[in-house]
């Protein structure tokens, strides 16, 4: 039984759902037998909070949601019985605001707090506050949180429990210069990461002294804003590792056991993108060794809950303890619905998708289908990348590492590369859609004084431009079937041609395809999502295409002299002022978006003409930040 998890960032609508794996069913059954509460407060947001609230409802427990200003109308708030606003949008002032949350607990008389994961779930201070107020913290006890929530402490503990650990510096790094010194001792490459961190935030790889200094600065800023703790540590960076994690269960009597592994090697900026179970890399022996070390660690910290022990595994199947998460991961869920805002302040993940199959091939096929059926509008998303990963030959073979994405797409992911037959299919579908729209434009209800005399066009001669190449297409229509000749090869395209539906199921010479027409302009431009990737095509009749040759190319803006925000976010710092001389590649400002700090650099060497933003400003995608002369 193979299950594929896809943690996506960010998706809007949940697609088809898979069944729960047996072990998950077991766990939720166990939950029901626990002593329960009348009312609990859920100290989290989004899909995580939704899932907790849903479970509470099943168990007959009342729920209190907390939310920030901008989340006031989000799904988890609507689902909960009560909701309390705990502050403005930045997490440090709302979801991490312990005083406000404690206040909310008192006000609503919640008997327990479920922290979900992230935020305060691994904060020992919070757990202590709750204990002082006699409020139950649903999750591992403070000792385990303290031990495992802190990377430096957890590493020391792991060493003591004889768990394999990564060579590195077991202490807090004071400043950038010390970071450089330690990095040299360990030997490059090194990994700089936040002591309190997780999920890839505040984490950077450095290959030389310069990168170490930069990385130290950015990571400590990120760590401070995400976790309120800017301590950093440095360790050896293991090149080409696989990321495999083992789930453990412990009880109050010192019993612990391990469940099978899950491979999470496909990562982007250290955020998991695709998860897979079982890993096709591990043999029984390694699996057992990892499982036993995971259990040893759980015992060492007297772990009494469900948790996840993460390992890095190198190509020789050596494994190293990475960190332990004092919780289980959440499964398929979506915390948003149409109309929800995806705020720049929080995690960008909006949906997860799991598919199953009797074997790997079947699970992958189902996943591809499910991804094609996601309808997402209004936000950028990574469906194209996900779909590409699961059909990539290296992935299919199982030849992956945490560097998979950067290896396979060294210049960044540019979308699916069409084979010749796929390209013909796309062109045939796009042309058929174009003609279907044209024919529909002539279908008027005959209530005018004057009859509509439709033009009689047997063969639509079209010129279709894709990736700057022009293709000759002839399409003719007979009911729901289009016969299309693309550059000489003939294809039959059949569909219902429902032009209002976001998803269009099309059969091209018997092959089923699900496409989405995302936009269509009268001037012939059309964006079509096909095989996960959005393609821009321009379709003109032959006459229009011939005349279009005379149209002049438009002069485009010189993008090197203007700096625009690539995404919505908050300006953290601006390091230039008008009149400053800047060198190409020099940092001009830093924008924080989706909790990542992005350094914006000058596109050319020159003088700063004007600065249009200041630290603290909220900027939208495409907003002008700085102009150079």
């Amino acid at each position, binding site marked *: 039984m193979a299950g594929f998890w896809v943690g996506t960032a960010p998706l809007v609508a949940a697609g088809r759902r898979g069944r729960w794996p047996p072990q998950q069913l077991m766990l939720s059954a166990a939950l029901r037998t626990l002593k329960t509460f009348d009312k609990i407060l859920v100290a989290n947001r989004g899909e995580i909070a939704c899932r907790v609230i849903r479970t509470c409802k099943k168990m007959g427990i009342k729920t209190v949601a907390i939310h920030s200003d901008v989340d*006031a*109308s989000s799904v988890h708030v609507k689902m909960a019985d009560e909701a309390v606003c705990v502050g403005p949008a930045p997490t440090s002032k709302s979801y991490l605001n312990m005083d406000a949350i404690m206040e909310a607990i008192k006000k609503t008389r919640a008997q327990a707090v479920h922290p979900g994961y992230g935020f305060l779930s691994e904060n020992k201070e919070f757990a202590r506050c709750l204990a002082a107020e006699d409020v139950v913290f649903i999750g591992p006890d403070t000792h385990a949180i303290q031990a495992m929530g802190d990377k430096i402490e957890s590493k020391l503990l792991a060493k003591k429990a004889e768990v394999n650990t990564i060579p590195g510096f077991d202490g807090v790094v004071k400043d950038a210069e010390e970071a450089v010194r330690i990095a040299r001792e360990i030997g490059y490459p090194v990994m700089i990461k936040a002591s309190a961190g997780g999920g890839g935030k505040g984490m950077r790889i450095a290959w030389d002294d310069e990168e170490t200094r930069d990385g130290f600065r950015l990571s400590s800023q990120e760590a401070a804003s995400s976790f309120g703790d800017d301590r950093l540590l440095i360790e050896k960076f293991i090149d080409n590792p696989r990321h495999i994690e083992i789930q453990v269960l412990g009880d109050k009597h010192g019993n612990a056991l391990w469940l099978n592994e899950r491979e999470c090697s496909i990562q982007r900026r250290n955020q998991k993108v695709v998860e897979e179970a079982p890993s096709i890399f591990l043999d029984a022996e390694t699996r057992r060794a990892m499982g036993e070390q995971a259990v040893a660690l759980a015992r060492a910290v007297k772990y009494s809950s469900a948790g996840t022990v993460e390992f890095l595994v190198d190509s020789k199947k050596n494994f190293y303890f990475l960190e332990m998460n004092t919780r289980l991961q959440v499964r398929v869920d979506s915390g948003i*619905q*149409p*109309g*929800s*805002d995806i705020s720049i302040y929080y995690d960008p993940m909006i949906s997860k998708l799991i598919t199953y199959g009797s074997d790997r091939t079947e699970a992958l096929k189902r996943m591809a289908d499910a991804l094609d059926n996601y309808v997402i509008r209004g936000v950028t998303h990574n469906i194209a990348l996900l779909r590409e990963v699961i059909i990539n030959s290296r992935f299919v073979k199982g030849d992956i590492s945490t560097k998979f994405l950067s290896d396979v797409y060294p210049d960044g992911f540019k979308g699916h590369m069409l084979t010749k037959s796929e390209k013909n299919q796309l062109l045939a579908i796009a042309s058929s859609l174009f003609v279907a729209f044209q024919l*529909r*434009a*002539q*279908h*008027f*209800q005959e*209530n*005018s*004084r*004057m009859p*509509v*005399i*439709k*033009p009689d*066009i047997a063969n639509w001669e079209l010129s279709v431009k894709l990736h700057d190449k022009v293709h000759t297409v002839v399409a003719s229509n007979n009911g729901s079937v289009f016969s299309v000749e693309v550059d000489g090869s003939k294809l039959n395209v059949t569909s219902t041609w*429902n*032009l*209002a*539906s976001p998803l269009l199921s099309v059969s091209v010479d018997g092959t089923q395809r699900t496409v989405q027409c995302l936009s269509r302009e*009268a*001037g*012939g431009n059309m964006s079509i999502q096909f095989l996960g990737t959005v393609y821009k095509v321009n379709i*003109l009749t032959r*006459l*229009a295409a011939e*005349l*279009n040759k*005379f*149209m*002049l190319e*438009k002069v485009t803006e010189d993008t090197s002299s203007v700096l625009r925000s690539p995404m919505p976010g908050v300006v953290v710092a601006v390091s230039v002022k008008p009149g400053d001389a800047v060198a190409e590649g020099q940092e001009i400002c830093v924008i924080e978006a989706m909790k990542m700090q992005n350094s914006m650099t000058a596109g050319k060497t020159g003088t700063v003409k004007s600065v249009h933003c200041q630290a603290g400003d909220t900027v939208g995608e495409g907003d002008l930040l700085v102009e150079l002369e």
Partner: protein
Amino acid sequence: MAAALRVAAVGARLSVLASGLRAAVRSLCSQATSVNERIENKRRTALLGGGQRRIDAQHKRGKLTARERISLLLDPGSFVESDMFVEHRCADFGMAADKNKFPGDSVVTGRGRINGRLVYVFSQQIIGWAQWLPLVISALWEAEDFTVFGGSLSGAHAQKICKIMDQAITVGAPVIGLNDSGGARIQEGVESLAGYADIFLRNVTASGVIPQISLIMGPCAGGAVYSPALTDFTFMVKDTSYLFITGPDVVKSVTNEDVTQEELGGAKTHTTMSGVAHRAFENDVDALCNLRDFFNYLPLSSQDPAPVRECHDPSDRLVPELDTIVPLESTKAYNMVDIIHSVVDEREFFEIMPNYAKNIIVGFARMNGRTVGIVGNQPKVASDSISFTPWNYARRQYRPYFAGCLDINSSVKGARFVRFCDAFNIPLITFVDVPGFLPGTAQEYGGIIRHGAKLLYAFAEATVPKVTVITRKAYGGAYDVMSSKHLCGDTNYAWPTAEIAVMGAKGAVEIIFKGHENVEAAQAEYIEKFANPFPAAVRGFVDDIIQPSSTRARICCDLDVLASKKVQRPWRKHANIPL
């Protein structure tokens, strides 16, 4: 013998007759051949416009010829040309010479179909000047002065346009003008001016009878600009079209201003600053494709109902995202275009004047296939005018309490659109989120009172079905103006987020409780009482408070019922809108 002679004589006479006949027949035949040849020649010349060199020159500039434009605009094979043989009648300045005469003159006219529906078209063109003024023309091109060349309007040119306009009015079908004209033909003098006036008169006669659309595809200067100004919609092509009364040279000599053609009368100027043009397109091909798209929204005449096109979008589709689209804080912005897109069929919305007076949104869409006119306040935009007034230039930040307000430009923009819809039986759907009229000296001195009255007048006058949805604020006089129940709105809805009051809580409390100590409590009381849809609903000023997600379904249902709406107004010669 005598008989034989007689026979011979008769025979001779006959043979003479026969030979005469043959000669006559021969000459007749040759005459026919030469006429046919002449017809062919003239047609060929007419089809070539000003000749291949002229065509090439036009192409080099990124522009299409008059005939190419028509072929793209109309359904293939549907164009029926008229007056191909008309030539100009000017005899002065050597214009009478055959080489300076071109069959069809400088405009192509006729009728055709767009997606099967009848339309009359004229397309101005630049013809043969190169043959008699080759040097001057090229020099003029370099100087970018186009007051004498190309597409200039002769008496014959005007006559051709008038002819198709007359016919369009008679049968009830729209007229589309593809303008590319250098102004009056100076050689013709007053005859050319008379020609303009003849066209103006037709434009005015046809106004409100048939839709008239102008697409400016080249220079359009002097008297030529007023015909587009009289039509219902003026579109432009970016970078290649200009509209102005006088070109940069005259401007320089009269006012000493240095200005380029583009700055003076380019597409950007007219679609963002002057409001003369309603939209601009990338190039000729893009413009003509868009014009076909646009044409589908329009009825053929005031005698026809709004067209209903085949629709795949379910009329009862719920739109869940609307339930959360209005932010909780009443000063926070959202995009009204998002609401419009999600309510109308297939998210298709043809916006009119998208870059001018952006605090109001107007445009065409369809509901269950039927064309509707959409008017909406835009909470995202305060007012274009704010940034232009010197007294607040330094504080030019976004001011939420002005968001979506009515000012001079937005009132005029809205009013003209509402009147078009009313004239052509297009139902009006109005989305209201308006904090009031924009205050200030700039607006008062500019005449906001009489300009604001135009929008009020237009909504009150309109007898087409009117459905109004108040999404958030509907304050003060602006509430009355925005297609309120009091102006004979047929169905007026409020969303639960609606606040219908004389003004916002803060301002109201400052007046009502002036000098009171506990302002906060007073404000809370005001909000409790007025910042909700109930005061209007209990009085019947809104017909229902609806769940935002059901908006599309409700409007579609209402429009079906209102399709048979009939309103009688007292007789009058014509109304007197405060111009």
